[in-house]
Every structure is written in C-alpha cells, then in structure tokens.
C-alpha cells in the first residue's frame, strides 16, 4: 500500500524533510513562550493565557481539553492567522509575524471544492505555494504522479476523477488530508479532523494518518477532544484547562508504533486515557465551581 515511488523530493527546492529532524536538546521546531490571546483587545474575552509549548521537529503532538478551551485559537496562533495578545511564537526558528506560508491544515469540515474532481482538489495547494506554483505547468506530470501516489496511500486511488459530493464523509476527509500534505509541509495542523466521522471510519483514518506520518515524519499538531484519538496518534499529549485555556499537563506516549486499534485496549493505553480523562474532568469541575461562586 505504501508504495511511495521515490518522489524526487530532494530535487524540489522545498525545505528539508524531517529525517532525524531534532534529536533531544535540539532547538524546538514550534515554540510558544508565555502566549496569551484575548479576543477584542487585552480587556476582551480571554481565550488562552500564558501558554508554553515546545515541540521538536518531526514530533506528533496532540492538544486535548474541554470544549471551548481555546484549542482552535491555538491553531490559528501557531499558523500566524491570529497575532497573540502577549508572548511570542516561533516556528522553525523564526518568529511568527503573519500567516505562515507552507503549513498544511485540515479541519473537521473537509472544505473540498465541489467544482473540482478529487485529483485537482488535492493539487490546489500546488497552485498557490512557491516554488511549486511556478513549476506546476512545466512539471505537470511529476506533480500529477505525486498527487496520485498520495491518493493511493489513503486508499482513494480509483476515485481521482470523482467530485467530492459523490464521496462519503470519510473519503472526503482522506482527500482533505492529501490536500494538506501534497506540498510536503514541515508542519501539519489538524483541528478535529475526524470529529464528524463515525467511530469505525475514525479509527480507520487514525491508521491512515499514522501510516503517512511514519512515512514522512513531518511535525504534526493535532487538536482534538477525543482522548483515545490523541493517545493513539501522538508522541506527546498536552492537556489544556477550561477557558481561558492554558497547558496543565503534558504526557509522553511511549507506546510502540505502529499502533493498532488493538493497542487501544492494552492496559497502558487505557490507563493513559483514564489519567487524562480525570484531569480534564477535574478542570471542568473547577471551572463549574468557579462559575457558581461567581454567580452567587
């Protein structure tokens, strides 16, 4: 299945792929330093407060927390779509000052373009990101092969001519994943990508994502409220508190890869999920108490 023809990635003048990216001690690839975010100015609604994160290159990180804890705001901050109110963010050693140029992103809503067949949907980033944008026309065949290989990897090889609305939600989400990876991003941001799928499809796609990640080892930040999903996929899990969100715990997941659905029933996996669950339950309770105290 994983028949990635040796894509001439080295020939592409894109950033180097994450082979042995950062050993322990290397400078983190993504770094958040005391980051806060308030919507509507410093006095406004506080979504995120004093958040510190350090993510090494090539790591798979999951961020979990109760709903409304600013997980999605975190995504927008790291990709530079929103400026932080306080603190600083750096990606790849450079301070984030505007939208990053080469991040892959995927959301719960697949947002494929309904007027394009699948293959052309997947190739959309190539029409925008440099240097692919200028090379696309002259090296069409090479890019087409790359897109087809990627579709093949996620099991959509036969569907490249289909329009998105002809496919199931799970298939659309696979294509969405392909679209976020086609330009070999160094950083992949996933915001509840499998949230709208049924349990079986979701578990299937965990496997697909893990496979692609193990193949390519990009840095990945996954925002989710599904603790099993986080434990299945991530190397590191950050647990966030209720609004205003901040990191309250960090768990290293040292389960061997590739993980399978069976490994989600192993005691270590179950224990980990259980621990995180009780942490989140605790912060939720505290938030409720605080709200009550405020109200009375």
């Amino acid at each position: 299945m994983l028949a990635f023809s040796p894509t001439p990635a080295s020939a592409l003048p894109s950033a180097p792929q994450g082979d042995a990216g950062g050993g322990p001690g290397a400078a983190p690839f993504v770094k958040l330093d005391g980051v806060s975010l308030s919507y509507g100015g410093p006095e406004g609604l506080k979504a995120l407060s004093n958040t510190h994160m350090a993510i090494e290159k090539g790591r798979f990180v999951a961020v979990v927390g109760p709903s409304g804890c600013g997980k999605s705001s975190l995504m927008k901050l790291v990709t530079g779509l929103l400026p932080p109110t306080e603190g600083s963010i750096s990606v790849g050693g450079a301070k984030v000052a505007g939208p990053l140029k080469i991040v892959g992103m995927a959301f719960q809503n697949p947002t494929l373009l309904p007027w394009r067949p699948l293959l052309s949907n997947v190739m959309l980033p190539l029409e925008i990101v440099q240097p692919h944008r200028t090379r696309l026309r002259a090296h069409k065949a090479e890019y087409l092969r790359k897109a087809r290989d990627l579709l093949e990897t996620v099991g959509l090889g036969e569907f490249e001519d289909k329009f998105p609305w002809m496919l199931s939600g799970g298939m659309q989400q696979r294509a969405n994943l392909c679209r976020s990876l086609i330009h070999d991003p160094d950083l992949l941001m996933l915001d509840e990508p499998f949230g709208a799928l049924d349990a079986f499809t979701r578990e299937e796609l965990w496997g697909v994502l893990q496979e692609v990640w193990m193949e390519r080892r990009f840095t990945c930040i996954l925002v989710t409220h599904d603790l099993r999903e986080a434990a299945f996929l991530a190397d590191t899990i950050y647990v966030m508190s209720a609004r205003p969100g901040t990191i309250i715990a960090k768990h290293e997941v040292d389960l061997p890869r590739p993980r399978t659905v069976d490994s989600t029933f192993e005691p270590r996996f179950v224990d980990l999920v259980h621990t995180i669950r009780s942490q989140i339950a605790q912060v939720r309770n505290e938030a409720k108490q605080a709200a009550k105290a405020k109200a009375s």
Partner: protein
Amino acid sequence: MSPNSRRNMERLAPWVVTIGLLLIWQAVVMVFQIEPFVMPAPTAIFEAFLQYRDSILIHAWHTMVSTLLGFVLGIVVGLLLGIFIGSSRLVYAGLYPVLIGFNSVPKVAMVPVLVLWLGIGQPTAVATAFLLCFFPIAVNVATGLATVEPELEDVLRSLGASRTDILLKVGLPRAMPYFFASLKVAITLAFVGAVISETLASNDGIGYLMIQASSQFRVPLMFAGLAVIAAMGVVTYLFFAVIERRMTGWAVRGQNLAPGGGG
C-alpha cells in the same frame, strides 16, 4: 408511475398549463360576451398579431436590442461591483446602504432624468434596462463571495495565498452559481426597463407600439404587444437557464451530471 412517464409529464406540464389558460380565457370572453376593446379573446389577439406582424416584429427587435445592450452593461457592472463589494468588508459596509437606497428608487422616476441626459430613444431604453438589471447581479455575486467557508480561507492563507489567489481559486467559482441564477432574474428585469422607457420616451420599440395602440383603442394590438414581450422574456430566460445548468452543474449535485465527468 414509471420515472419515464413522469419526466414526460414534467416536460408537457408548461404547455398544458399555458394552453389551458388560453382556453379558459377564450371561453370566458365568449360566454360573458366581453367587448374586444375591454378584453380581447386570444384568437382576436392572434389575428391582430398576424395583421400587424411586420411592424410588431420590427418594434420587438428594437426592444430586444435595447434590452440586451442594457443587460450586457448590467453584467459587466454588476459583476465588477459584486466582486468589489464581496471581497472587502469595508466596501460592503460603505456601499451597501447606498445601493439599497438606489435600488429603492422606482426606475420609472429616473426615465425623465435619463431623457434629459440621453435624449429620447434607444440610449435611454438601454440605460433604463441597465439600471434595473445590474443590482441583482451585483448582490448575488457579492453573496457568493461572502459565503466562502472561513476554514477554507484559513487553509489557503496558511499556504501563503494572496487575496487575489483566494478570489480566483475559490471566491469566483463559488460565486458562479449565484451569478448565473441572477442572470435569469436580471434579463427579465432588463425587459421591464427597456419597455418602461419606450412607453415614456421613444419612437420605437414594443413600449411605443403599445402606447400608440392604446391611444387608438386598438386593444387586441396592445395585447399582442404584451404577448410578444412575454414570449421574448421566456425565451431569454430559458437561454440563461440552460447556460446556468451547463456552467455550474456541480452546484445542482449531478442529476444530469455523469459521474467522473470533467477532469
């Protein structure tokens, strides 16, 4: 009922309804013996049409040309204006009230002003048609641009897409179904505009013909004029409906679209 015969019924329905209405009309006129100068029977209207066929067709052609010229202007201006409004919050906020206000003015009231500027005749008819038809186009295109999913915009911006990129790759294709839907509305409005202007200030066109017929109490001729306008409206509407289906089949979720088409 088999799906085939149902489709046949759907195809026949407009004819059945139209002919049925004409028959009822004819019957009412005959039964109640309504005078032709009050309400002529369809047969009388048809006779009038045959009798004045040449002059009706010349005037109809004139109206058609005015309408289409105004319509083309309306498409160009409406499309540009729609893109302008739809791609910037600020422009939207600033321009929308003005446009609403402008659109609330009855265009009949503007014809005298246009006559002052453009004189009596075709230019005024073209301008009135244009004024009536550009608004729905602009509003629809702006709506289409404004409905781009924010997530998709985030995805593109995080790839380094400029505003022009987003507009070309996503905004405009997304707005196309809205645009083509508005054309169907706009073409009928363009007819209204052209005919209004002709009735007030012109020596050509169906509108002028109707005023002339009215002053001479040739009521069947007036109705023949109305029928010709209606027929032209239906034909142009159908034309744009077909174009719409051709251009934006993806938005209709492929009833007629073969899987795997395009590509």
